[in-house]
């Protein structure tokens, strides 16, 4: 028997849609209060990263990779979306404590709005990637038209799943936040972002798909770098995305009714 019955507080679909809309709009508004500067900030950080790696690996260590700056750019921008979303998820429900304690609403929408927000920043930074593609003599291909929407969807699902797990669990185990910092550092260097796949020693090549982020980032990078759509790696990322989404939903369902007790 259900212990709580709230009749008459059903939300319509329109309300869910509006809820998502205002939550996303809220973050965007806060970020882009001054429009030009806000946009510059959201691309400044990945560009700065790219510059640092370019200096360290190309100028100092003289690694010989063709179109290295373009390779960096096409890997770092998708990675930023991933890393920013995952990195901010542990504090997500904690940061919205007043809401969770006072208002009954589907909390599952909070991580979604955060991720959509990061996705919008990523989409807005696509022109920067395009600019680099042009500089290095490339051009967008037909694969972009199918590749970008599919990868956006897969990426969104994967981050949503991971974020649901982390944001829910961190309410109960508060040191997850620190653990995420450490793990993300490993994931960054184990994912082919600042080096091409070919440089990975032969005996480790088979392990690439074991890193859930690697197939996704490789798919993004090949799309921008070579204009090709890597079906195999996209399929693997899709499988990971589904698994994370299922796990995330399961964890959220198990824990969400206790949220107001622990925030």
């Amino acid at each position, binding site marked *: 028997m259900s212990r709580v019955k709230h009749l008459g*507080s059903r939300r319509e679909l329109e309300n869910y849609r509006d809820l998502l809309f205002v939550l996303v709009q809220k973050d965007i508004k806060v970020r882009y209060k001054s429009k030009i500067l806000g946009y510059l900030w959201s691309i400044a950080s990945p560009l700065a990263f790219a510059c640092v790696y370019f200096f360290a690996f190309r100028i100092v260590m003289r690694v010989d990779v063709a179109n290295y700056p373009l390779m960096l750019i096409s890997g770092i921008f998708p990675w930023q979306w991933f890393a920013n979303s995952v990195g901010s998820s542990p504090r997500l429900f904690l940061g919205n404590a007043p809401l969770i304690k006072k208002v009954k609403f589907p909390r599952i929408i909070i991580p979604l709005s955060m991720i959509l927000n990061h996705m919008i920043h990523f989409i807005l930074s696509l022109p920067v990637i395009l600019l680099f593609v042009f500089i290095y003599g490339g051009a967008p291909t037909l694969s972009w038209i199918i590749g970008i929407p599919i990868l956006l969807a897969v990426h969104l699902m994967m981050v949503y799943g991971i974020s649901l797990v982390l944001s829910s669990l961190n309410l109960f185990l508060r040191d997850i936040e620190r653990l995420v910092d450490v793990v993300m550092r490993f994931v960054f260097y184990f994912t082919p972002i600042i080096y091409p796949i070919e440089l990975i020693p032969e005996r480790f090549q088979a392990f690439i798909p074991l890193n859930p982020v690697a197939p996704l980032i490789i798919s993004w990078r090949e799309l921008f770098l070579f204009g090709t759509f890597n079906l195999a790696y996209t399929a693997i990322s899709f499988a990971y995305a589904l698994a994370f989404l299922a796990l995330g939903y399961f964890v959220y369902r198990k824990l969400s009714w206790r949220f107001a*007790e622990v925030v």
Partner: protein
Amino acid sequence: MREPVISFDNVSKHYPLYTNVRGIKNVLFNFPRNLRAMRSQRFEALRDISFDVYRGEKFGIIGRNGAGKSTTLGLIAGVLRPNEGRVVVRGRISPLLALGAGFNPELSGRENIVLNGILMGLTRREVLSKLDEIIDFSELGDFINHPIRIYSSGMLARLGFSVVAHLDPEILLIDEVLGVGDIKFQQKCLDKMMAFKESGITMVLVSHSISSVISICDRAMWIEDHTVKMVGHPYEIAAQYCKAAGVEVDLGDIPQNVEFSSS
């Protein structure tokens, strides 16, 4: 036969003391001991309470700090779930009205009204159609277009009450908030609450202000040591409560709820 809109049926609520499982580290290293500790140490917030609130009633809840008043409101609002017993609520509920719940400091007053309204379950269209009325009632003037981080606590209370009061909830939950506004606004809130009486809205008011419980409520409940001590006429409850607390309050001057004093 009057229809109960809120019924508590032998409701108990206890919180585990999560201190032992605060982090992954602790869980990993002392798991069995901590699990036992978590089961045995718990904080009892409400023990086997039952009461009904009927449609259109103004129901006051008084009691000492930590007696379980806020837990009761949390259960009504549906942000908490009872461990035993059953809570049934019929009707659309307002969030627990408290300072700044759901407000984003960077957004303007106007934007916060929309955000809050949608969180409460309305659609964007519905909120926008009431926007002017809400802004008028809050008397915030030009401040409505400024970010609310520059608001004083009294101004926040004005904004909060104005939003909740105009989104016609069927059940209005008020948790100790009216003390913050200036006397003129307090009077305005009282007038608005009296107007609710005619429209048949059910109101649950948690307050330490004995006088406002007596002047607003039809019925009051006194919670002591996590159980219901008394339910009845607000004046009597207040008199008993003051006596038990050892505080002498002259209740004679307080205008009593009109409906009751005439009957």
